[in-house]
């Protein structure tokens, strides 16, 4: 097929060349292996890890109950947070000044105070507001409850986590919505879509690409932040192992049990996040071009 070459066959061909030797790379590898070995020996030979105790409590019913509470709290907190965050982000991007001021004040307050204080506050709400009632302003209440019967530790924890999360999610959703080309709004209008349809079909799916990665971080942060609720006597994962080691003094192995489950939970969340990210990056990667016919725009 090719015309006979005018040149003699080459002596050198870089296709077979090797990498240049590097002392730094080699040293780093050796150090990593040594440290890993040392760590493994430490974990195995130090008797104070009490691995049999870890194994005994790993699937203990009270620990699994605690894990379930932690997962449930993280899910509810995240759901409340995402809902509040989306609404507040839309409000902040609207032209309604009073609503915008209210949303900014909310974000300012809940992002600006430690979550631990917020949780303790919600737990002690009954001190400030002994009864909670529903009715018209300045009228006798239609429905009334004792705060202590309504704000159980679980409700206080879910409220605290959700409200704090909402403040962070507001900023994440807002940034995501702002990252969508404003001309996409025009294009959605141009095919006669109502604003609501345009938001859910055109703007939000594109914003998700920028919302999902930081939200994933938030979910992971939230799953770990649930450990804070142990201070308000919520029987979460951490609290459930605390109850055991307060009785048996096997602090280290029981903390390892908790660490194991937190890591499992976060690995699962991470896998979910990767899937969701792939879902919303449709149309973004050149690699999905069919049969290599792609042309750069």
């Amino acid at each position, binding site marked *: 097929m090719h015309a006979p070459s005018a040149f003699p066959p080459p002596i050198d061909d870089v296709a077979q060349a090797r990498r240049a030797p590097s002392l730094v790379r080699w040293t780093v590898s050796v150090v990593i292996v040594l440290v890993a070995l040392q760590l493994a020996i430490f974990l195995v030979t130090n008797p104070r890890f009490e691995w049999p105790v870890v194994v005994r409590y790993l699937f203990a019913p009270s620990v699994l109950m605690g894990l379930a509470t932690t997962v449930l709290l993280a899910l509810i907190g995240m759901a409340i947070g995402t809902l509040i965050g989306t609404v507040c982000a839309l409000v902040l991007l609207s032209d309604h000044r009073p609503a915008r001021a209210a949303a900014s004040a909310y974000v300012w307050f809940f992002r600006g105070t430690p979550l631990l204080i917020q949780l303790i506050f919600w737990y002690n709400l009954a001190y400030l507001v002994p009864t909670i009632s529903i009715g018209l302003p300045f009228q006798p209440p239609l429905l009334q409850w004792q705060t202590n019967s309504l704000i159980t530790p679980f409700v206080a924890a879910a409220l605290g986590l959700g409200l704090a999360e909402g403040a962070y999610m507001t900023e994440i959703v807002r940034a995501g919505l702002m990252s969508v080309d404003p*001309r*996409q709004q*025009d*294009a*959605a*209008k*141009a*095919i*006669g*879509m*109502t*604003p609501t*349809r345009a938001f859910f*079909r*055109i703007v939000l*799916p*594109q914003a998700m690409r920028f919302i999902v990665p930081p939200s994933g971080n938030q979910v992971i942060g939230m799953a770990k932040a649930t450990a804070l609720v142990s201070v308000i006597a919520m029987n979460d994962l951490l609290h459930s192992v605390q109850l055991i080691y307060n009785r048996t003094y096997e602090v280290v192995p029981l903390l390892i049990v908790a660490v194991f489950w937190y890591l499992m939970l976060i690995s699962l969340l991470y896998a979910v996040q990767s899937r969701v990210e792939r879902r*919303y990056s*449709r*149309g*973004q990667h*050149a690699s*999905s*071009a*069919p049969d290599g*016919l*792609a*042309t*750069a*725009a």
Partner: protein
Amino acid sequence: MPAAHLTDLPPPLDVADPQATAPAKPVLSLRNVVKRYGHFEALRSVSLDVHEGEVVAIIGPSGSGKSTLVRCVHQLESVEGGAIYLDGELLGFERRGQHLRALSATAIARQRRQIGMVFQQFGLFPHMTAEQNVMEGPVHALGDPEEEARTRARRLLSRVGLADKLDCYPKHLSGGQQQRVAIARAMAMQPRVMLFDEPTSALDPELVSEVLAVVADLARLGKTIVLVTHEIGFAREAASRVIFMEAGRIVEQGPARQTLASPQTERLRTFLSRVL
């Protein structure tokens, strides 16, 4: 040939005039339309009728208000004075006794469904394939059954020469192909009038002709078209009427060939000598 002036149009109507009745005949009708950006007057009392099957090309220097004009017709920009009618229906407002009141966003969306729009920057939805882009309006704005919309989308995409690109995302299409999808997307709504806002200005030179060929095809089918363009040659060939705008006003208009061959105003003559 009397240049520019609108003596042959019916007397101007105004948003503020309670006696106003819309003229019935033209598809699209603008009366004394005013648009301001702060103190800058982008449109200074523009009046214009576009009749069924007409292909109106709007030319003029940048900043003359030609893009603003089509964006106002599509209610993408708010209009500050005058009125725009589609088939005699006032766009963007409704009469409540003595007053005109702005329509809700939903009502405006309903009116927009009768007007197709093609943008300079294509504006395809990047998270949808070509076929999904074309189906989106019929399914999610008109509420057409999905299968019917798919059939129509496929027919339109093959009409613009993209039958083999149904499943491609916009990122994998050239600018000319994207713009042809955008035209198919607008056509899928079966609009009364198609507006083109400089559809070839963002394209590489060698891709311009494939898009213009599609526009010419629509013109041959008898579609009513308003086309803002810098392609004077195309305007001469495909348009039935040419409108020359400058500084927010219509300066001259007339049959395309005749007007472009022998402009009546000095300003159009100067403009043509610069762009040709």
